[in-house]
């Protein structure tokens, strides 16, 4: 069936709530309103107010209580609305969630998921548009998922909810209405496994979330120019699937990383550093980063679009390697 990314995420939650009555959902405006993007619509009706709850505007309590709930055996799949707001509960996520098991011993595990909507969305401004995955990549102990399609989103979210480890699940606002064929039968996608979204031989583009679409657009343009692009979607940023990426590099010897966060200290910083360190002899040139400018995302839409990557910028970056 053709489903949107938004529906696929909602479906994943509902299926897992049917599978396991320890799965609960809470966050701001998730119940009657079905979340501000409509993702959790229908959950209240099916599962009732004990399984899905609106919270007060209290991100540290949302995350903190998820820790407590998960510690004693519930499986909270919570939401923080905009990913930007993860920063108001940063210590709870970075220090507490990431380290809880390490600090307290192997009896402790945190089967919880934090869902967040991220990315530019036409004038949402500098505090409602951030892609912050890279900040959490620095934290030991977190699993970080950032799906680029409806099919992936559903399969990955189901695995995230079943995982005994805490997962940060980043959804891109601009992807919510994109559609894809979703099988009727149940499926999951394992965490930590990258997906080759397009095969190619001349250059490897590692692209994250919405940027996979932009990379695929760029690949089309480059194909016409005679450059064969392989597009890899890591899907899970931590743990990172080096194998798939390294195998591709052994074939292409050129790498471009495309992400929507700021360039400095972004996802590409780690990936470029790691790849050149571990695959130096396989590379025919530098690992090139295409990322958002190092400016707070401007409100003006022209300037916003100017600040984030697009197919054209990716094409230019790839061409710089030939």
């Amino acid at each position, binding site marked *: 069936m053709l489903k949107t990314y938004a529906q696929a995420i909602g479906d994943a939650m509902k299926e897992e709530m049917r599978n396991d009555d320890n799965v609960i959902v809470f966050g701001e405006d998730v119940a009657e309103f079905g979340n501000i993007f409509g993702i959790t619509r229908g959950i209240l009706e099916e599962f009732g107010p004990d399984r899905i709850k609106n919270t007060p505007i209290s991100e540290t309590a949302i995350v903190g209580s998820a820790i407590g709930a998960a510690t004693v055996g519930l499986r909270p799949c919570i939401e923080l609305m905009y990913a930007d707001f993860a920063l108001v509960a940063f210590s709870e996520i970075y220090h507490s969630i990431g380290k809880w098991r390490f600090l307290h011993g192997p009896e402790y595990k945190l089967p919880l998921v934090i869902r967040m909507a991220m990315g530019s969305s036409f004038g949402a401004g*500098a*505090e409602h548009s951030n892609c912050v995955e890279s900040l959490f990549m620095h934290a030991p102990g977190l699993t970080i998922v950032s799906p680029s399609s409806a099919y992936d989103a559903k399969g990955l979210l189901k695995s995230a909810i079943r995982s005994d480890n805490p997962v940060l699940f980043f959804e891109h606002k601009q992807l919510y209405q994109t559609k894809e064929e979703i099988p009727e039968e149940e499926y999951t996608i394992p965490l930590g496994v990258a997906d080759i979204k397009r095969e190619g031989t001349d250059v490897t583009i590692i692209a994250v979330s919405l940027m996979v679409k932009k990379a695929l657009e760029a690949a089309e343009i480059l194909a016409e120019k005679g450059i064969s692009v392989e597009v890899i979607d890591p899907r899970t940023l931590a743990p990172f699937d080096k194998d798939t990426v390294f195998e591709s590099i052994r074939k292409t010897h050129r790498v471009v990383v495309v992400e929507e966060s700021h360039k400095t200290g972004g996802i590409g910083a780690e990936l470029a550093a790691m790849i050149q360190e571990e695959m130096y002899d396989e590379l025919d040139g530098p690992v090139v980063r295409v990322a958002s400018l190092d400016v707070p995302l401007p409100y*003006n839409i022209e300037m916003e679009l100017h600040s984030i990557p697009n197919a054209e910028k990716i094409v230019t970056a790839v061409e710089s390697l030939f």
Partner: protein
Amino acid sequence: MTYSKDFLVKVYRDLAELRMFEEKLVEAYAQGKVPGHIHSGMGEEAVYAGTLATTKDGDYYKITHRPVGAAVTLGVSYETAFSEAMGKSTGNSGGRGGINHISELSKGMLGFSGSLGCDAAVGPGAALKIKKDKTDNIVYVYYGDGTSSRGPIHEAMNLAAVWKLPVLFICQNNQFGISTHISRGSSVENPGADRAAGYGMPSKIVDGTDALAVYEATKELVDDIRKGNGPAILEAKAYRWRGHFEGDQTPYRDAKITEEWMKKDCVKIMEKYLLDKKVVTEDEIKAINDELNDEMNKAIEFADNSPAITADEIYDNIYA
């Protein structure tokens, strides 16, 4: 209390201006001239018009996302305000910050934060300067009923109270945080006033649709703060007429209750008061509104015709 005509007309004008600003903003948004989301503050104008009738030169202000038109009440020009809302170079931040950051330091505005509550302590911080200068100025810090549940509100209030800073916290209780009724967002009925005792602060609850009642309650608290007696909380009860953002069909609430509240129209209430007491004539009312309408239309046209900043300029205001 007895009031001068000037005073009453000023309060009325502030109400009408804020209402009209909000109307024009909704209109401009519907026309696709305003990016992102707007949060209409219609129905809640008296909270600002009433509290801001107590200010004096040198006071500071930390407003919120609703209504952002409060910036014009504080003196930001219509041109600047609409330009910023429309993302133009002629806005206060040149369209970089946008709708939720219409702010001018020369008007005493401290700026605000899109992460709710994170700016609560900005008020106490500015109050340190007032203390240093030994004036009787104060800081007005606005926050919503929903935002009352955030931790930084607690930290800011406790700090202001421990340091006895001249800060008035104003809880704009419009009964909702997005879709969540205050009864589910807050453990107490009055999320502003009911917490004041927990910081040793005085407080008042007031009908936020009655600008003069808001003024009177504010004045009492403000007079006390100006005397050096430390912070206080005012809670003003009103109702959010429109959706949280444009497009929100408010499925989570009873339309009848909304209708009831819309009858308590703070602009009309003040207008009726002025006419009943014969402070102004219908013609004067009309003249005020016509003038506002004219000026705002011109400002929107100005904003419309203003350019966006250029790509190079986006780096300009990062470092001083």
